[in-house]
């Protein structure tokens, strides 16, 4: 049993980091548990935020600096919460820390990566390039400490990295560890996964090379992405000139996700600017059902709509096929405003895929009720457990920040009630 933390935050994405920091800066100890080896979650994969078009790493860097400067936050990466027992004021929590195979002595020098013989698809870039079995996701990753992909590493029989490391930082025999803590309250911020577009038969996702997801588009446009920020289509690395965005790819569809995923309209409009900025002659078409740019976001929509090279077409996409020779993408759709069917050729198509709460597939160990879509049902939560961000319903980053800050006060109230 390590020292008693007051508040546990599950999930180290932007919501979880915010909830943890806001609680800690109000003077309460926090434990933050993140499943992956690094903090930041989904936003680390984004090129820019809408509507300001500013880089997410800016806000993350400030938050990491806050973490560095504030006592009272314990961070567990590569870790999962295995057990939650108890009630407001006293939850016994078991945290399983999966082996990173790299200890705190890692200095981030990259010598291990250079000698590692195992190349694996880079999950951070959705398989669009390769990484090594010992890796760091990007140059601003936090903590800045390498990790070994245990599934792909050849283990002690290879150990080239162990040899290369001058700092005694690699331990290929590292085992998982269980840490038990006691907390007064718990904030759930487990975030979301992208809907698996290969389940949508007619849109070609996962089957056609040049049909990609919106998250892949973020990586393509990112300076630290697989193409160093150049928007090149996967089949032949040709610069994209003519692109289509298909909204509600999975969302608002009873056969897939019955809800709206909130961010996809704004995300596609933003991504239209990525291409337009890179290539002055490029053209963009956005197929949509309803354009959802709530509140002040409307202004961003207007700005992009004013660009004559960006067309918004109200209509549902019926079918997407590949031209086997050119690898171009043929989109058949219904243009509702014109009342006719259209068939058009694009260099590349982006599917505005929806959000699936991570709790759809991995439940939190505790007495929690979920909707049929896997979202946490907030009213089912007992006092002492609070859900934030996309674990409750799809939301954007700014609303996640509000929600996470709000959850921090609820967690403090729990601490106070249990004094």
């Amino acid at each position, binding site marked *: 049993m390590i020292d008693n933390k007051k508040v546990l935050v599950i999930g180290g994405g932007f919501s979880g980091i915010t909830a943890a920091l*806001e609680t800690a*800066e*109000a003077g309460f100890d926090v434990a933050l548990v993140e499943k992956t080896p690094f903090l930041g979650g989904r936003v680390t994969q984004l090129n*820019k935020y809408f509507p*300001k*078009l*500013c*880089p997410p*790493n*800016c806000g993350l*860097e*400030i938050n990491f600096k*806050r973490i560095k400067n*504030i006592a009272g936050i314990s961070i567990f990466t590569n870790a999962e919460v295995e057990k939650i027992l108890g009630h407001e004021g006293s939850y016994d929590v078991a945290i399983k820390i999966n082996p990173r195979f790299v200890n*705190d002595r890692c*200095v*981030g020098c990259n010598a291990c990566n250079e000698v590692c013989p195992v190349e694996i698809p880079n999950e951070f870039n959705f398989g669009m390039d390769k990484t090594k079995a010992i890796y760091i996701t990007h*140059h*601003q990753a936090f903590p800045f400490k390498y990790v070994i992909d245990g599934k792909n590493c050849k283990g002690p029989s290879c150990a080239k990295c162990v040899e290369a490391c*001058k*700092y005694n930082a690699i331990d290929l025999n590292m085992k998982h560890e269980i840490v038990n803590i006691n907390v007064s309250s718990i904030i759930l911020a487990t975030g979301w996964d992208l809907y698996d577009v290969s389940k949508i038969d007619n849109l070609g996702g996962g089957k056609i090379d040049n049909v990609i997801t919106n998250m892949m588009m973020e990586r393509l446009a*990112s*300076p630290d992405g697989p193409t160093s*920020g150049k928007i090149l289509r996967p089949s032949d690395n040709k610069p994209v000139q003519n692109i289509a965005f298909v909204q509600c790819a999975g969302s*608002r569809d009873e056969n897939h996700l*019955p*809800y*709206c*995923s*909130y961010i996809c309209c704004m995300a596609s409009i933003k991504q239209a600017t990525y291409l337009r900025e890179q290539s002055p002659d490029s053209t963009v078409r956005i197929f949509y059902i309803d*354009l*959802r740019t*709530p*509140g*002040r*976001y*409307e*202004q961003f929509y207007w700005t992009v709509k004013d660009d004559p090279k960006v067309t918004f077409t*109200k209509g549902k996409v019926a079918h997407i096929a590949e031209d086997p020779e050119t690898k171009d993408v043929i989109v058949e759709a219904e243009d509702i*405003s*014109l*009342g006719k069917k259209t068939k058009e050729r694009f260099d590349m198509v982006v599917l505005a895929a929806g959000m699936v709460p991570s709790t759809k597939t991995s439940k939190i160990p505790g007495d929690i009720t979920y*909707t049929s*879509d896997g979202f946490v*049902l907030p009213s089912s939560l007992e006092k002492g457990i609070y859900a934030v961000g996309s674990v409750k*319903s*799809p*939301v954007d980053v*700014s609303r996640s*920040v*509000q929600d*996470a*800050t*709000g959850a*921090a*006060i*609820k967690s*403090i*109230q729990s601490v*106070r009630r249990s004094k």
Partner: protein
Amino acid sequence: MEKKFGVYICNGCSIGESINIEKLIKSSARAAKIQPDAVRVHDILCSPAGIEMIKNDISQGMNTLILGACSPRVKFEEFDFPGALTERVNLREFVVWTQDPNTDAAQSTAEDYMKMGIIKAQKGELPEPNILPDLSKTIVVVGGGISGLTAALDAAEAGYEVVLIEKEPQLGGWAAKLYKEVPREFPYEKLIEPIVINKIKEVEAHPNIRVYKSSTIEKTDGQPGLFDVTIRTNGTSETIKAGVFIMTAGWQPYDASKLVHLGYGMPDVITNVQMEEIAKSGKITRPSDGKEAKKVAFIQCAGSRDPEHLPYCSSFCCATSLKQAKYVRELNSEAVAMIFYKDIRTPGQTEIFYKNMQNDPGVLLTKADVTKISDIGNGNMFVEAENTLLGEKIKVEADLVVLAVGIVPATRASQEYLDGLTEVTTKGDDAKNAYLESTPKPEFILNLGYRQGPEIPSLEGAYGFADSNFICFQYETRRTGIYAAGCVRQPMTMSEAASDAAGAALKAIQCVEHVSKGIAVHPRAWDATFPDPMMIRCTSCKRCTEECPFGAIDEDEKGTPFYRINRCRRCGTCMGACPERIVSFKDFSVDLVGSMIRGIEVSEDEFRIVVLACENDSYPALDSAAIKRIKINSSVRIIPVRCLGATNLVWVSDAFSKGIDGLILLGCKYGENYQCHFVKGSELANYRFSKVKETLDKLQLESDRCQLMQVAINEYDKLPQMINDFVERIEEIGPNPFKDL
């Protein structure tokens, strides 16, 4: 504290293999005025043995540490020595990873960085927090709608005293005027009873909350922890002490009288707000004849998303009209509801509510642009529309028309008035006086006695919605200790407003707690330093008061500036602004940075370029470029600053008189979508720079020698090239002519 210097050099991460450590020891010892054998070298300074060595020295009285190792962005847990002034010198990223090893250039770069670190440690001091006496932790909530009630309750439940001020004679705001609310949760089937009714009861009964109804704020003076708030209630005034504000003044429905083109003014054309009142009676009746309405038309975006009216979406109206359509259907199963929309906006799971409503055959939804509402003559109206999904014009009969009007933030009137005032002020006193005479002064909400104006500023182009500018930091406003929440910030639904208000309450608590410890609030929430001006040398030029982005500096009757330290965010903009250079922080001052610049070795046959880098974005970007091992010209010396706004022009003369050949200011993007967390740091630096350029030209010192570059943190891959290009230009211009003086 008498400083006892400890200089440490790490041999690890190829530092020892890339630099002549013996020479580095000698130059560092000279700079630190210690014996060379007192400089400690360790093979891996961050290893447990290395840390043990340092801790051992500290226990022997060492209190000022200079650690030549890696970037301060890493190994922060290891190199954490509370009570010791610790200066990290970035030899790894800025020398080893960016310079060719074992070259004279790498050596002199390393020696300069060590020397600058030593100077910083010599000039700097450990912070001692400035805690003002008699602080209040009371939280003032302005506005008693759903946001204000939520904020008040959340703060009170967390153990804080709350004062809630409401303009109206009763609490609840618009939320209390509702018949029912949109369901908030799956399965989104049943409308819910207004949540606000219970909240009002809880607030009124809560021992930590004092409620002032029919009250407004006459005046607010002071600063976080020490606000004097004068509350006016029914003609009498009372002044209370308070620590912090939550601004939840809410919104007004858009003025429907401006929507004549949508039929407003006709007896049976009403707003969505009026519809709630009607529904409360239990029957949907028409104002004209009291008959029950059977064909109710809802016109969406009545004013919203319209450049002539409100150029934004009001966020809640789609779900509200769907809810009101449900009133129509539930209160009379024979009645039908027709919704004319541009786009239906029910984001997130609210979509499921929309789907449920679509399943009701008595609710008809049509995408259309409504062109006209006309009187049929039989007491009913025609709704005429075009651009429908069928492509044709339609004409539908209705006996009641509901305009889904949008929201106008309560802050808009004051904002427009103040923006107008700012504009005319630039045109001289006559224009200003004419404006003051001719323009009716709106009722201000906070009535701040700040030099920078009576309200929290709104953003450019935000139509009167209050700050904040940041996606990641929703509560980072330009007035410390005043946190806006709910529809004063942006259009939102009731549940969004409640979550926003809870967040604002947390920030308010943080603010009073930090003030009580004498530390800053976000984004330097750990910082115990503060600006400490040597007032005896102040000339009352007021540049600091004008440039402080947070209104932290006021002026007394004589016009002498004085700090309201608890409003300060510690960016150093005042330090940069002051021509007398009298503002200093314990670990950051004009002299400290100037001395670092002057400490750089300059020789006749080499170029030297100084980069002043904003530590929030630019420094991490430089670090990231180094992690990517992108080479940077060896003439460059990087000095981090809190914000480019802290750049004092004397540093320019420090640099050029010393013989530095070029100067780069590296900071955040400015303009409408500014990224500077201190609002205008890089913009102000650029402004000051433009002034100095004229002087440089006069001195025959090419003004091209200084350049401000705006860089985002993710542009690090381009950054070394930008800097190297600049160095090339300087090489073309030639050496600084003052070099050999």
